[in-house]
């Protein structure tokens, strides 16, 4: 069966949300589209939106391809998503406060103790530490997919240092420059208030000891990092300093930055650097990117880190399989967003099933990210499957498996014309002291290769502008009954 298409559904004609797009595509000849695509690439290159691909020295700076055909969601689809995202991220934060605090969920037997406390991302330094308003994940990127017009599934929670939001913002800018007429015909929810919302969230979580106007900085590993462009872009939009470790130092458990006017106290660090590199005195001693003494200042409550240290224990793929129970446990609600059915290879029955069905399944490393180290069964050769089988048998705890989902497709310009390509969506969820903020939309990623299901930019994925539009007058009412039972396969 062909995948669900965002524009054509299962082939029953154009869905109302896509009428404007349809009319635009119908009236544009391929040459015109090709010209727009070229212009888009030129704009991105000039602005300097480049992306370094690890392990690829030749293409040190490469742009993530931008597709000129926007992806559209209706207001009511977004309303569902938005409620689901708020619920999910609230549960993630409650989970983190619990596992670094009382540990109720483990004692209740909902999540196995070893998955939490033996988890490499679990940070003993965080135990017993009280964070402002118990917020651990100030910025989350939740990867969402769908396979029909009813349900949204969470593919992955990103609770460490999710990236991509600069593309959400730049894609809108470029799309508006390329197709001003489209924007005149459709009312699209703006995204450009994201930096304001982010700053408001970050400030609301400053330490109690901070002044009324806390000093926020964005910390980057430096220009060689693959997301450096995004770091500098965001710092600029936020109006905060873009710092590296060497710009900061700690004195008497207070963090200062070196400025041309002398030392200046820092209250909130939006850090885009992994836990391991934050403080060579506590984590990796060989890290030259971090700030010696940072964790002592953190534990003294003199600085806020966003996201908090040790959030990785919540977005791990093994914990992921428990998310429906985690939502129910803390919030007493049914999850609004579904989980993709997942086999935990650590459980012997599941492992047996997975080993028997490798050619049909997607197998992922529990600790992996960015589309590295995964097996897409149907797209792999016999050798690749056998190599993976050996790894799986050697370390079953390190893997989970999921069915190969028919991710929805969206019309995409592919050189010769328009063709369907698989997509996902990463909305960005901000948690402050007062509330959860979500800018309507997110980053739509698209697998540009025909038939490919891997949307990661490191693996040949591209991006699209994402539109949340008012519900078309004659669109179907939003699907009722969002309380589906979570498929927890395996076991």
């Amino acid at each position, binding site marked *: 069966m062909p995948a669900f298409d965002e524009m054509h559904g299962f082939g029953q004609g154009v869905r109302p949300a896509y009428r404007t797009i349809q009319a635009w595509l119908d009236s544009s000849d391929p040459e015109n589209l090709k010209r727009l695509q070229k212009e888009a690439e030129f704009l991105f*290159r*000039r*602005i*300097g939106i480049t992306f370094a691909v690890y392990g690829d020295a030749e293409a040190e700076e490469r742009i993530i391809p931008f597709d000129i055909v926007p992806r559209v969601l209706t207001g009511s689809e977004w309303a569902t998503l938005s409620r689901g995202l708020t619920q999910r991220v609230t549960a993630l934060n409650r989970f983190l406060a619990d596992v670094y605090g009382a540990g109720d969920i483990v004692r209740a037997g909902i999540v196995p103790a070893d998955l939490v406390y033996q988890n490499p991302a679990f940070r003993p330094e965080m135990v017993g530490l009280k964070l402002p308003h118990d917020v651990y994940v100030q910025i989350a990127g939740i990867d969402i997919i769908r396979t029909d017009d009813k349900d949204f599934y969470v593919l992955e929670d990103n609770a460490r240092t999710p990236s991509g939001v600069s593309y959400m913002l730049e894609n809108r800018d470029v799309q508006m420059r390329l197709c001003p007429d489209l924007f005149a015909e459709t009312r699209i929810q703006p995204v450009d208030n994201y930096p304001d919302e982010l700053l408001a969230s970050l400030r609301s979580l400053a330490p109690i000891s901070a002044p009324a106007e806390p000093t926020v900085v964005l910390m980057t590993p*430096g*220009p060689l990092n693959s997301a*450096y*462009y995004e770091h*500098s*872009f965001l*710092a*600029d939009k936020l109006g905060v*300093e*873009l*710092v*590296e470790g*060497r*710009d900061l130092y700690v004195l008497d458990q207070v963090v200062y*930055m*070196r*400025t*041309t*006017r002398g030392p200046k106290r820092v209250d909130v660090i939006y850090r885009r650097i992994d836990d391991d590199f934050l403080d060579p005195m506590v984590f990796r001693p060989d890290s030259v990117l971090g700030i010696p003494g940072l964790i002592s200042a953190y534990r003294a409550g003199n600085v806020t880190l966003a996201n908090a240290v040790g959030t990785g224990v919540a977005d791990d793929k093994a914990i992921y399989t428990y998310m429906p129970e985690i939502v129910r446990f803390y919030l007493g609600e049914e999850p609004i967003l579904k989980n993709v059915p997942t086999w935990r290879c650590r459980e012997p029955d599941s492992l047996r099933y997975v080993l028997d069905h490798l050619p049909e399944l997607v197998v992922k490393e529990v600790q992996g990210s960015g589309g590295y180290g995964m097996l897409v069964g149907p797209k792999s050769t016999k050798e690749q499957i056998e190599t993976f089988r050996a790894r799986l048998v050697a370390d079953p705890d390190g893997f989970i498996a999921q069915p190969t989902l028919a991710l929805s497709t969206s019309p995409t310009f592919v050189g010769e014309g328009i063709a369907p390509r698989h997509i996902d969506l990463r909305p960005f969820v901000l948690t402050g002291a007062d509330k959860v903020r979500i800018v309507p939309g997110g980053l739509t990623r698209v697998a540009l290769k025909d038939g490919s299901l891997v949307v990661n930019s490191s693996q040949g994925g591209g991006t699209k502008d994402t539109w949340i539009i008012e519900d078309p007058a004659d669109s179907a009412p939003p699907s009722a009954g969002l309380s589906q039972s979570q498929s927890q396969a395996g076991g």
Partner: protein
Amino acid sequence: MLSRHADSLYWLARYVERAENTARLIEAATRLSATPIIADGGRNEWEMAVDGTGTLDRFHEQHDEATQRTVVDYLAFSSANPSSIRSCLDIARANARSVRTALTMDMWETINSGWMETRGVNSPNLTRQELSDFLSRVKELSLRFDGSAYRTMLRNDAYYFLRLGTLIERADFTARVLALKADVLDPTRPSLGGSADYFQWSWILRSVSALTSYHWVYRDNLKPNLVAEFLILKAEMPRSLVSCYENIMINLDSLSRDYGRQGASQRKARMLLSQLQDTTLSGLFAIGLKEFLERFILDNASLGDTIAEQYLG
């Protein structure tokens, strides 16, 4: 602002200015090489061009002979020369990338697109036309960078550090070009005869892009003492030493006003500026032009160090 950002801005500006200056040196040498005179104690115009960048020793480590081919390669494209145009633009862009937040979009686009456009050019076997196009693009990059800074940047410390980088580099270059030809500018020296003097003097002015403005200011033929006066003491000439220092002072004063504090940089610059302002043409030649310029180059470098110590560390 972050000290590291101030440092990157300062060096970004210096390297852009250096790239432009080097492009002008190559242009001036190309022009001189088309004239019939080769008379400077056996030094040819290509060796002079290298000397103008103060890296003659390094050049001779890599090349025996200074020819158009070796010098253009060394000054424009060599990655072994940290001050080649290619190296300057690479370093400038790396600095720009690390201070993206302190640059306006226009400035970043200028640096980034200029870097991309010139990156592909690197054969030492370029035709004259191709070389000339390349040099024009480099000059254009620098002009657009200056212009976009002037038109789009907030007037705050970031702007002042950027300007300081440009001005210190510019003063250094003017002084070096003059020092190179200090002997032919000595009015008591016997003439080389014919049009030889004219080519030497005009080479100096061309290297700092000042030939036309000389005529506007003096409405006279080229005279060696006036060339020296023009590039050292004339405040209306933007590449003259005195003009560079007037502007260095303005930017340092703006900084100390904003920061509420004077420091060693302000004191040192004020002293150097008043020395320049008190100097007369006859005084210059009495000290000895070459000695004067060599001391200036050292003083100017030392002001750079003082600024780094006070603000950029």
